[in-house]
């Protein structure tokens, strides 16, 4: 069966691959319609084409804003615009992944509505979605799981990490525990 043949089924209304909840603090105080309750946002993976478009848009913005004179500023502008452009295509309605959450002018809407922490929260969730679903992501082996259990039990897991890295690992492990709980049958 070719892609064309499965496309109609493929295009049926589908729930987002992942749903994240943004607290009101993730939205800019300057936004007149800042929510007072947590907001659920669906995430979907973006295609190679969308990524290419995001790169092109980021490069254009970076050069327009900073030109030849400020290479560091150009890099920062590129990265910020790239992330917003990807999120513009990745954020969807939780119940229907074909409807963009931030609408058609999503990139500028994201810049206006979200704080930098809000953007970061969405980006981290998107990166996690990629790890969870990529056919290239390696899966942990039984031996590695056993070694992890031993390292947790004897306390060596955290003691060999810097405090900042400990927090990162604790967040990732918390996410893994939540995922196990939500998927357990």
């Amino acid at each position, binding site marked *: 069966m*070719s*892609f064309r043949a499965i496309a109609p089924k493929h295009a049926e209304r589908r729930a987002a691959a992942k749903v994240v909840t943004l607290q009101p603090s993730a939205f800019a105080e300057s936004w007149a319609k800042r929510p007072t309750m947590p907001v659920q946002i669906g995430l*979907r993976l973006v*295609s*190679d084409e969308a990524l*290419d478009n995001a790169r092109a848009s980021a490069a254009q913005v970076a050069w327009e804003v900073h030109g030849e004179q400020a290479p560091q500023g150009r890099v920062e502008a590129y990265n910020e615009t790239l992330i917003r452009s990807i999120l513009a295509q990745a954020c969807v309605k939780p119940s229907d992944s074909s409807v963009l959450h931030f609408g058609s002018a999503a990139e500028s809407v994201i810049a206006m509505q979200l704080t930098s922490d809000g953007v970061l929260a969405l980006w981290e969730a998107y990166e996690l979605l990629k790890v969870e*679903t*990529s*056919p*290239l992501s390696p899966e942990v082996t039984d031996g590695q799981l056993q070694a992890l259990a031993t390292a947790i039990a004897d306390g060596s897991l955290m003691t060999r990490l810097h405090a900042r890295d400990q927090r990162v690992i604790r967040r990732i492990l918390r996410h893994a525990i939540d995922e196990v709980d939500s998927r357990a049958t």
Partner: protein
Amino acid sequence: MKLRDIKRGSRATRLESFPLLDGTEVEVELKLLDGGEQDEAKEYAVAEALRTKTEPAEGHLVFDEARARFTVYLATYERAETPIEQRSRFFSDVNEVRRELDGDRIALLFEAQEALQMSCAARKNHMQSDTEFMQSVIECATKEVGEELPFERWQRGLRRSWVHTLANRLLASLSANSISSSDFEERAVGTSTN
């Protein structure tokens, strides 16, 4: 690789399943590309590189990504019982590959197609002698951290064969010395790797 280099015949295929971006699992059949089709993929990659004002050569991001994308378009077929030449390609054009897949999925299919291509090639995909194998191991072991290692430029088939032989010999050596793999892991802790 040209058609004349293909040993298993131009109908050799490989089944590959992968998830689409929305999670739908699909199974496709990858086929060998002949010299003309490989040239087409390169021409597309050159055109993309020139369009984006980047270097039209292997090792450059735009060129490599474009070649992978076009290879996936040319080599991916719908799965069916009929001979492959009677079937349609899975994607209607290269733009559909771009619209419907991301970089990871394109890389997965491209690497699977390359592995198929190498498995059918008459080109060298194993070491010619034990001496040659040992020389390459010594060369890898004595390079400084960060230096390019010999296998990094080898063809995929040769790399696979080399790593397989290396792993086999390590296992045999561990067994001969009655060292368990956990002992080995303990010994390995703290050693630097590339």
